[in-house]
């Protein structure tokens, strides 16, 4: 005859140490469901990343032969503006006259340009504060207190080596990877 005592016997799954086989099955099943749910999150998160067509952006080649000393052009690379500037000897001298240790993001003009092409300053036209396009590349635009670029959004001033000198931006304008194909053609990216 089944009694209350008998239902508590090891026969119904108790392993004798207070755990039942069912406890193990419960934990295993819920854990595995958790692993499954975590796996499903991966594609849901990953779909947000740049898609293949956005990533498949070829590098661009730019003809710089028409840019005279003191002039600059804006071009577009990866949907972002790029400034190509032909520095005058005076601007180069100004950039080199600044003691590097006083800069927020210490870099020399030499480090930011190619050997023997120190007059060609090529940077992204994206302010390192919050991503606006600084002024200064176009004819007649404000160049800021240091003669380089000036971001109108929050008042960051860049010097003639596009280094941050004043305002909220933390870094110098980014120098993308580029190479001179010839004296007049530069490949960006």
């Amino acid at each position, binding site marked *: 005859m089944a009694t209350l005592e008998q239902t508590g016997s090891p026969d119904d799954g108790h392993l004798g140490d207070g755990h039942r086989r069912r406890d193990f099955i419960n934990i295993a099943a819920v854990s595995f469901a958790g692993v499954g749910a975590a796996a499903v999150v991966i594609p849901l998160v990953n779909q*947000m*990343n*740049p*898609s293949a067509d*956005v990533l498949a952006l070829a590098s661009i080649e730019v003809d710089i032969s028409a840019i005279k000393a003191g002039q600059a052009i*804006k071009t*577009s690379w*990866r*949907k*972002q*503006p790029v400034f190509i500037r032909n520095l005058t000897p005076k601007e180069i001298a100004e950039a080199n006259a600044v003691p590097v240790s006083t800069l*927020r993001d210490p870099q020399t003009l030499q480090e930011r340009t190619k050997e023997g092409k120190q007059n060609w300053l090529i940077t992204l*036209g*994206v302010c*390192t*504060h*919050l*991503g*606006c*396009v*600084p*002024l200064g590349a176009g004819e007649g635009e404000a160049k800021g207190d240091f003669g380089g670029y000036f*971001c*109108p*959004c*929050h*008042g960051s001033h860049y010097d003639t080596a596009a280094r941050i000198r004043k*305002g*909220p*931006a*933390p870094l110098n304008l980014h120098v993308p990877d580029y190479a001179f194909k010839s004296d007049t053609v530069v490949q960006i990216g």
Partner: protein
Amino acid sequence: MSFPWAQHYAPKHPVTQWLDERLPLPRLVYNAVGAGYPVPRNLNYFWNFGVLAGAALGIQIITGIILAMHYAANGAIAFDSVESIMRDVNSGWLLRYAHANGASFFFIVVYLHIFRGLYYGSYKAPREMVWLLGVVIFLLMMATAFMGYVLPWGQMSFWGAQVITGFFSAIPVVGDPIRIWLLGGFAPDNAALNRFFSLHYLLPFVIAGVIILHIWSLHIPGSNNPTGVDVKGPQDTVPFHPYYTAKDGFGLGVFLIAFSTLLFFAPNLLGHPDNYIPANPLSTPAHIVPEWYFLPFYAILKAFTFNFLWIPAKLWGVMAMFGSILLLFFLPWIDSSPVRSTNYRPLYRWFFWMLVADVLALGYLGQAEPSTFVVFASQVCAAYYFAHFLIILPIVSRIERPLPLPNSITESVLHGEKAEAAPFGTQTA
């Protein structure tokens, strides 16, 4: 939950009785915004703004769903599709202007609603959860408004998206990957526009859901009132319907008159002309500012122009801007004064109005050109904003000697609040 003397829903018609036994939805409405919800009898017109915010959300959802029928979330044609809504779609101009100005009015009434809560201590026990959910709604509103502003894909849309997603790049190490992940590219483009459209459609319904929680948590202790004194008995309350449905109805009429005035006579007053220029990733507008309702926070962001300790200026600005809102989550515990209504807090009253002036000043500075004076003034005002919550409020709530409170809402109503505010023993009944 409600007060024990709340009127009970008792359907008389057989059909409503049949429905009540199967799906008591009319009972829910009766108890929430009908005669079954007792409300303090002394609410003033500042208590209209909750209902007005709900009405503004309704306007936004209805006009928004219709606009989505005519809008194309594609970077190549988004701008043109908005122009087609304005010129070609029947009544499209009205619906779009109503949606654009409706957002402004939603923020106007919500800001008044927030300052009402601040003045009358509606965030204090036992209504902390109402306040916390309200701050959540405010954050959701800001996200929704930002993403909606991107959709017309004009210059301000594009550069607003650029600047605001730029906030995330301030996070050390992982900032730039997060930004690229959010945008689905290196700069705002089609991918970003599409996901903003999707979320802009979703979030209003999330807001509606949180509003239900907001009202639910409000109805447990019941509404606060201008004296801040608890309801003591049936004589202190009146049923929500018809008393406050009528009062809110009048307020709604005034709100709609103001809304229509702007909508029909100055629909672009609060917008920026630059947003009628199609998005151009190669040219930032000379003077980029967000919509007016973000200006105080934008001023705080811009106030940080110098590195401090080991943290760069950019990260300080972003942290301060988010911190200025997140701080509100702690307000119920920062203000330890047991007196709710500022009417009875002579010292705090000064600082309340100082805060109002400070936020208005930040709003002005947010849209001003970043000259030396503007940056300095923003720094002072931003510092004061934080000082209000972190220094002034804890001290004031400890040292202040509040005025005597009325014994009950009814007494305050019958005696008039001026007489009631006089010290005990000197009252002239």
